């Protein structure tokens, strides 16, 4: 007997929650790693060590040229062949999203550090700070404000892109939704619900990013 739409959603909640847990876990892990990796990338790029810059540049261009979905397939199909490693699709997704996310956050960080007046670096050096102290006490704290709105936008994109994990077999919220559709044929309801799921996670982030940008550029 066909249940009404909301009833169906209510009954499926546990399964959907489990799937959502996967989606959100992938997203949060990737966001965390991307943030750390990105700041590291930004700092390393602004040190202006030629060989280091070259390597980081190649890394950046590789993740820009090759779409994330292709990277997912490269790792998912390629790792077993190249390195004999069989990584579960969940961790494939986290790895790809983290590396890609780090390159995006990294460029934001690099831009923010680069936009600081050169004199800040010189003033810091002139009182005898070493590189770690210079970045830790002077440059990064100032860059952080400039970095935050664009970085939140990167986070939003990571969350949206995590939806691609279903295509390499992760049982995330989309897969669960599809399983429910197979049984009940309620495709409009389920896909609509998934649509709103992502919207209600991403929209607050986007809005927050805009509010922060407006508030902090007026300062």
């Amino acid at each position: 007997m066909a249940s009404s739409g909301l009833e169906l959603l209510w009954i499926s909640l546990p399964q959907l929650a489990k799937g959502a847990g996967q989606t959100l876990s992938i997203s949060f892990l990737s966001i965390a790693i991307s943030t750390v990796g990105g700041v590291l990338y930004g700092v390393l790029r602004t040190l202006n060590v030629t060989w280091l810059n070259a390597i980081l540049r190649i890394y950046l261009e590789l993740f820009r040229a090759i779409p994330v979905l292709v990277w997912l397939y490269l790792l998912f199909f390629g790792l077993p062949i190249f390195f004999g490693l069989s990584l579960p699709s969940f961790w494939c997704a986290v790895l790809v999203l983290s590396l890609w996310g780090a390159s995006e956050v990294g460029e934001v960080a690099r831009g923010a550090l680069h936009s600081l007046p050169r004199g800040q670096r010189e003033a810091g050096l002139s009182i005898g700070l070493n590189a770690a102290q210079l970045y830790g006490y002077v440059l990064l704290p100032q860059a952080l404000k400039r970095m935050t709105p664009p970085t939140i936008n990167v986070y939003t994109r990571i969350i949206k892109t995590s939806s691609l994990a279903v295509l390499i077999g992760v049982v995330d919220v989309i897969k669960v939704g599809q399983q429910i559709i197979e049984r009940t044929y309620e495709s409009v309801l389920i896909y609509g619900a998934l649509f709103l799921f992502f919207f209600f996670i991403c929209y607050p982030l986007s809005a927050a990013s805009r509010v922060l940008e407006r508030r902090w550029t007026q300062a």
Partner: protein
Amino acid sequence: MTFDYAFILSTLPAFLKAVGVTLQVGLIAIATSLLVALLNATILVFRTPYLQKLVGFYVELARNTPLLIQLFFVYFALPAVGIQVSGFTAAIITMTFLGGAYLTEVLRAGVDAVPQAQLESGRSIGLSHGQLLRYVILPQAGILSLPSLFANFIFLLKETTVVSAVAVPEILYTTKSYIAIYYKTYEMLAVLTLICVLLFLSLSLLLSRLERRLQHGQFGS
């Protein structure tokens, strides 16, 4: 690890066709997105009250949801209410939906960047709304938006890989099919990577060059 070069050569025609499909989907999506964005930009410029809010709502909806979900909705869910479309059509519709939103934002930023003084001086010499738009706002907004527009075009081209999920025979779908049939995973992934690098890296380098040239010509930058 041996490389089956003969096999790769045999697949080249298919990949060429796949690149064609990628470009086809991408370029159509770019064109339609641009049209949508121009329409939206006009609404935003003239601040039509009700429509302006609608545009804002559309942009937020499209930008805060994944392309994949939008795609699945059009391809799998709409048939349930009687609208059935091919994978290709679903791809175009959703990419226009998404692309239109992104490009609207780019044009909005471009229009905002045109100094208010320009509008005022245009009005003070008696230009009508349409003339103001055509001769004063759009040209300036256009130049300012160019790098960002181009970057979004590249983004749309890259997103075409997502439509492989509804069996559109672009480069990723073709790669997956060949792997599934012939098991030449290593070779097929290598070809895919090479195509991506050749196609998208070159476009991204072109974008960098465009940005640099525009910076030289821009007054006061």
